[in-house]
């Protein structure tokens, strides 16, 4: 299990290549990559604030819950903070399990919990100034299924 919270960019391909050599009982690996979207073409940058100390603990607790619940052979969470440009990777998760259903469910569980339970806050900076991204009711509702 590996959890990293960092300002530096990460290399998604290299993380994928290095993940999931979890032994002979791994049949399925799922990864999720979150990217800074810029639908309007007006986003100058995104800034992600976090709560140092709590962030690592909250993510580790979520990752450990996923590992235990889906008997994961391995789990990885990387999440950036600080300034990010459109198109840059924000975060990723990876799960390794015996079967595909467990790998998918665990990755979705991780994403749903990271969205709403890990202390990150996104701010978008555009031509009209800065605005904090509002939490969506959908994201809170997504937790109900677990």
């Amino acid at each position, binding site marked *: 299990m590996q959890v990293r919270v960092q300002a530096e960019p990460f290399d998604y391909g290299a993380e994928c290549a290095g993940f999931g050599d979890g032994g002979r009982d791994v049949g399925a690996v799922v990864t999720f990559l979150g990217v800074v979207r810029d639908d309007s073409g007006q986003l100058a940058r995104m800034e992600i604030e976090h709560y140092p100390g709590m962030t690592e603990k909250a993510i580790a607790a979520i990752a450990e819950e996923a590992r235990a619940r889906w008997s994961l052979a391995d789990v990885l969470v990387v999440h950036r903070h600080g300034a990010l440009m459109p198109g840059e990777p924000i*975060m990723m998760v990876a799960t390794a399990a015996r079967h595909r259903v467990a790998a998918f469910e665990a990755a979705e569980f991780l994403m749903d919990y990271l969205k709403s339970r890990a*202390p990150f806050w996104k701010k978008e900076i555009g031509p009209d100034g800065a605005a*904090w991204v*509002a939490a969506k009711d959908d994201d809170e509702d997504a937790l109900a299924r677990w």
Partner: protein
Amino acid sequence: MIDVLYFAWVRERIGLPRERVETSAATVAELVAELASREDRYAAAFADLRSLRVALDQQLADFSAPLDGVREVAFFPPMTGG
């Protein structure tokens, strides 16, 4: 004495990221009432508790939670990671 931390727009409204507070509040809600009565910027930050979250010693908690033994309280908006 307790460390009080603010994040995101709560930090921006209050105008500082953290402070040490002398308080005899027994619960988070009592601490919020004390802070909100200080100045307009605090009142503005704490105007709508439904749009706020609180962590006690880096664990999410409720506004009704007791402060007994707590060293660090953090206030922030709903999280938007991932």
